[in-house]
């Protein structure tokens, strides 16, 4: 039985349709990456699947239970770590995990034991009796993850678990997610980081403007869109002229900035000399040139016509570890 089944799921806020007929299926025991830019509908979808928000159309089951009609059974089967770590800065880490154990119906002694195990697992034993408000961003995310695991849920929802974290903290969370998955937990992971989806997910769905635009394994999605591209940075001069030249060799991709030209080439490395000669003949100086194999961002571009990474950079302030 699939861990999650979603059919025609919709959610509107007044006149705005935030999620528009999402269909997806997540197999038991897989890591499912839900990839999209800010405002694409990721969090709204997760809030519906975790029973925090009623859908306005369609249906969904999680762990075999309907998210509307059997919401309490859904909540007993899931662990949730939402985008903003839902922590009380005035509680200690240990108090929070014990409270979570009580909320999940664990007897007192079992709750205390489980809290100790989880705090050790996420490497927070030493900080366990400090108030959460004194924790760094990475520590807070690890605590939030530990709280989500108190009752050993069948399905774990992680909503952008590494947003704003430094690379080391991000890697720690990734390792923990992999370990959980190896233990058999199904993980539904929303992210706006392509690398995160690429590294972790067995299957990926790309959502844009409330609709799923692509779904499959990361490799299958990249293979589907095909060719590698050449990324070249101009030393000087007009990008328009460089694009005109490159368009004779391959297919131009949407530019990421005013100095970089992206051109998809059918024969990969074999096409590099042709591009270099064409630019040289046109008198265009180049700072750097690189052959880039397809990434999930390329899949995103192919499916939506715009870059995910660029949107993220535009939308978000610089991510800094607290």
């Amino acid at each position, binding site marked *: 039985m699939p861990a999650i089944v979603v059919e025609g799921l919709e959610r509107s806020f007044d006149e705005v349709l935030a999620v528009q007929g999402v269909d997806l299926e997540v197999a038991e025991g897989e890591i499912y990456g839900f990839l999209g830019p800010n405002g694409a509908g990721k969090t709204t979808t997760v809030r519906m699947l975790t029973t925090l928000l009623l859908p306005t159309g369609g249906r969904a089951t999680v762990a075999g239970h309907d998210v509307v009609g059997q919401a309490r059974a859904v909540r007993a089967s899931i662990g949730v770590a939402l985008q903003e770590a839902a922590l009380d800065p005035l509680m200690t880490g240990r108090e929070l995990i014990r409270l979570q154990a009580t909320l*999940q119906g664990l007897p007192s002694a079992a709750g205390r034991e489980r809290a100790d195990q989880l705090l050790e697992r996420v490497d927070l034993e030493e900080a366990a009796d400090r108030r959460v408000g004194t924790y760094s961003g990475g520590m807070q995310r690890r605590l939030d993850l530990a709280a989500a695991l108190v009752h050993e849920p069948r399905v774990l929802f992680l909503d952008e678990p590494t947003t704003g974290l430094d690379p080391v903290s991000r890697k720690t969370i990734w390792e923990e997610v992999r370990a959980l998955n190896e233990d058999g937990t199904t993980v539904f992971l929303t992210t706006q980081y392509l690398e995160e989806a690429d590294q972790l997910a067995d299957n990926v769905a790309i959502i844009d403007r409330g609709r799923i635009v692509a779904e499959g394994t990361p490799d299958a999605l990249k293979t589907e869109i095909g060719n590698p591209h050449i990324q070249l940075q101009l030393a000087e001069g007009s990008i328009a002229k460089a694009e005109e030249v490159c368009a004779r060799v391959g297919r131009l991709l949407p530019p990421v900035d005013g100095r970089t030209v992206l051109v998809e080439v059918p024969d990969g490395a074999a096409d590099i000399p042709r591009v270099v000669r064409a630019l040289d003949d046109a008198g265009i100086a180049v700072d750097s040139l690189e052959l880039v194999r397809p990434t999930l961002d390329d899949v995103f571009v192919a499916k939506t016509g715009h870059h995910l990474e660029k949107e993220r950079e535009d939308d978000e302030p610089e991510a800094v570890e607290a």
Partner: protein
Amino acid sequence: MNELAVNARVVRALGMRSIRQTFRRPQLMAPILIFPTLLLAIQTGGAGGAVHLEGFPPVQSFLQFMLAGAMMQSLMLAGNSGGIALAVDIEMGFTDRLFTAPIPRYTIVLGRLAGTAALGLFASVWFLAIGLIFGAEIHSGVPGVLIAMVLVTATAMAVGGIGAAIALRTGSASVVQGLFPLVLVLLFLSSAFFPNDLMIQPAKAIAEYNPLSLVVEGIRGPIIADVDLGELGAAVLAIAGIVALGLLLSARALRHRLRVG
């Protein structure tokens, strides 16, 4: 463990968290104890001669008269602080943790109210102790003390229900905080700080129909005189009305929150 026992454990755990939260956040504690204590000291020191006015009920001292008002002020502000704390929980996403747990949603509100009730109980003990230390007598003795404690605790919970409903509906701590002056207006338009018979219109008419006056008189009665069952019954009915209103509004606000996320 049966479901009722499990839910009772959840309410107790959330109530304990609520109490800890209040004691760890001085800005929540100050309005509950410090402000009413200061006002009690100022009023008792500055307007103590009011007891000699014609129409003032027979009392041993102005402090004895004022104890019920101080407790009312404290419990009203405890209810308001409980609402603010719940709104802060909503703003920082902590309620999402509670809403995704397999517990009945009423336990979330009851947990918060249990914490507010405990603060009400604490406030009643605090002000009765102050009264006794500074020479106020509790006319009806131990039964009067117990009645005051029970009524203050129950009213704190009832008022907390209204605060919780506003917090759930608006999800904004600043909106709930903005009700602080209204709490004081409601109190001043009751017999909390001055006998109804000595008020002038229209305050007198408003105070007469203000349910808070019924509660105040229920608390004050056994402190300044013998227990009056009619007065006590009216106070219990008024508290029951506030509880019913708070629960109704909270239930509607919870449903609204689920609809809008």
